[in-house]
């Protein structure tokens, strides 16, 4: 659940995927942000959408910063702590840029759709052409600005591509209510493009899911 967001202490422009997530949230919703980092998304949702937001974050620094900001955030782990939340406790459960760092992504996703009526997941797309190109030409594990780690020190243990993720969504009988792919500069990839196109040109993706396929 350690995400690159915990590293970003300096307030900068709001991240592109946060803006996409924010647009997908109804004002006043009850929201759980799993892997909420320094709380930037929760704050955005609180200030812009008036949500009743809660968070879980693995890193102590992130949690302490959130709580000092008055956010209801607990130190915890998506893999172990989601089990303690009751069914239907939230309108939306968000997992942004974190699913690839969980030990059991499928279980986490199933918990999210149990705890919340809807789930929003954003993740880096390992099928992006630049990563494919690096692997093919250099024969080494790809790195990028958003994925700066070496293979041996990365918290990201379960990378997937957009198509892999869509397969998982089908496997757990969830429905895709919305999907967006963003390119390296945070712009939306052409909306009506087929999956293979997104999978090649989307650097990250944002999915909104609900129960029942």
């Amino acid at each position, binding site marked *: 659940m350690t995400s690159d967001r915990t590293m970003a202490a300096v307030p900068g422009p709001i991240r592109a995927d946060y803006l996409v997530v924010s647009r997908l949230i109804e004002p006043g919703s009850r929201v759980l942000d799993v892997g909420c980092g320094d709380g930037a998304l929760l704050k955005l949702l609180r200030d812009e959408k008036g949500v009743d937001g809660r968070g879980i974050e693995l890193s102590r620094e992130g*949690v*302490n910063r959130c*709580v000092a*900001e008055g*956010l*209801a955030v607990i130190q915890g782990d998506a893999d172990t702590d989601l089990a303690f939340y009751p069914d239907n406790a939230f309108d939306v459960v968000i997992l942004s840029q974190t699913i690839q760092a969980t030990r059991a992504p499928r279980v986490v996703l199933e918990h999210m759709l149990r705890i919340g009526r809807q789930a929003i997941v954003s993740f880096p797309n390992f099928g992006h052409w630049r990563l494919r190109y690096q692997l093919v030409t250099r024969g080494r594990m790809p790195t990028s600005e958003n994925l700066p780690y070496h293979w041996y020190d990365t918290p990201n243990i379960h990378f997937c591509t957009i198509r892999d993720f869509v397969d998982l969504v089908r496997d757990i009988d969830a429905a895709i209510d919305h999907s967006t792919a963003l390119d390296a500069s945070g712009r939306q990839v052409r909306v009506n493009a087929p999956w293979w196109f997104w999978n090649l040109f989307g650097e990250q993706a944002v999915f909104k899911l609900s129960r029942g396929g």
Partner: protein
Amino acid sequence: MARARRIPDDLARQQADQPAGEVAHFGADEPLVLDAGISLAPFQIAYRTYGTLNAERSNAILVCHALTGDQHVASQNPVTGKSGWWDIMIGPGKPIDTDRYFVICTNVLGGCMGTTGPASTDPATGQPYGLSLPLITIPDMVRAQAMLVKRLGIDTLFSVVGGSMGGMQVLQWAAQYRDAVFSAMPIATAARHSAQNIAFHEVGRQAIMADPEWRGGRYLAEGTRPSAGLAVARMAAHITYLSDAALHRKFGRRFQDRDAPTFSFDADFQVESYLRYQGEAFVERFDANSYLYVTRAMDYFDIAADHGGSLARAFAGTRTRFCVVSFTSDWLFPTADSRQVVHALNAAGASVSFAEITSDKGHDAFLLDAPELFAITRGFLDSAARARGIA
């Protein structure tokens, strides 16, 4: 070896009946029904307040003290002359800001600083209660505090804050008086006392009761003091408030005022000298029977047991905002205890923050200079104050 400053015995003794600060008296018409099944009346609660209650009576924070603490949380202690035990946290401009909030701190029921306890004079006999006082529980302490809060004209506490046994009271308040608690900060605590902690307490109690000067609990009437036993109890307990790392950093294996071992049972090591000092200083200010009563209250504490074994049920439907805090090196109330509370609060759908603070200072960390704890406390209270409409 450093010697504890000698405090005249009657200075501590007189606090039991005539404490410094405020006292609320509850007469025969307002008995306190104890968990032991006995009505206690009359009784009194000694307390201190700081700051000003606002016109809406919405800015009151109750601070609950730990096992050997007292009501003098942010002002000079009348017995030791030292500054308040949480002076670093509470005051003008501090995290619990007395320019903004009205802070109340009571001596717990069973204590020895002015609230009715075993060292208090039993009005029926004119003698100290000693062991004739019924056993006290954490819910009893909280019930007594609630009577005081009501008498002060406060319907809803803006916050209840406390560490260790104080944190137990915070959790009890939230479970028992949910509509009267807007926010709650249980720090370095648990929803039930562990077997290991009960075991440590039993060692302390046995040390006191094994002291011949204890006289079956009648030492005050008979003019003796079980000082040796109480000092040993404090020494053993004090170890549990620290950590291996903190002890090592502070003392290591260094000798006390000597270069080599003396081949005797004198306090060769600094750590021995330190513990002896802690023991001696403690007996100057604390009543041995009070130590028995208050440790017992902690032992009996188990919120889930009072709610059909389910901690989540104790908090079901709560609207209180919680901020739970633990410390990494605290092995007396380890993070797992706090996490259990957090999981129950999550299951109950409560608004909860939980931070584990990195510290090598052990359980005592919550009383010390902990900038992260201060930032968290300030942030949590600020956000709760916004929600409560406190300026």
